[in-house]
């Protein structure tokens, strides 16, 4: 491990991701769960950037770029489905 402060920040961000996962489990309606998943996506992107800086790997940050764009497409697809199809 090269930079321990980035690693500990990634651990705290993953604790926040676990709290967002509680909203996915206990959400009373479907859009509540989708909000939980959206928050989880952004926190995982932040955690990947932190781990890429901690372990000095560029490939983790490239994966974070791809994950950010694909999670956006996934959120838009679920929102399109929730509002009643392709209108």
């Amino acid at each position, binding site marked *: 491990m090269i*930079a321990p*402060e*980035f690693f500990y*920040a990634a651990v*705290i*961000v993953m*604790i*926040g*991701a676990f*709290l*967002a996962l*509680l*909203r996915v489990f206990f959400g009373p*309606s*479907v*859009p*509540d769960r*989708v*909000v*939980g998943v*959206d*928050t989880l996506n*952004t*926190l995982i*992107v*932040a955690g990947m*950037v*932190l781990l*890429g*800086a901690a372990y*000095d790997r*560029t490939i983790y*940050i*490239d994966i*974070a*770029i791809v994950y*950010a*764009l694909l999670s*956006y497409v996934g*959120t*838009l697809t*679920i*929102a*399109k489905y*929730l*509002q*009643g199809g392709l209108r």
Partner: protein
Amino acid sequence: MIEWLIGTFLVVGVFFNLLASVGILRFPDVYTRIHAATKCTTFGTIFIVLATVTYSIYNYWIQRDPAWVTIGIHSALVVIFLVLTNPVGAHALGRAARKSGIRPYGAVIDELEGRL
């Protein structure tokens, strides 16, 4: 000196990301949860990437290794894409929630009442 700058950026970013998680657990309905989650995670991730970019610039200044330039530029690309796409996703999600019939909790006035 530069370690204190990186530490301050990391603490601010991690604090706002945790605040988003607490916000989506504590707020009463889906619109206030979107309000808490989107803005707090975007702001916190901006500061986390700022810490990473500062760290890579500092290491490039010491070691002269071009791999640190790659890490800095790709982290900046992460935050550019995230700032461009995250509010649009939140807007689509709130609009979809309102169109699927969820009323705002304790709303005094609802501008979209008869227009959906």
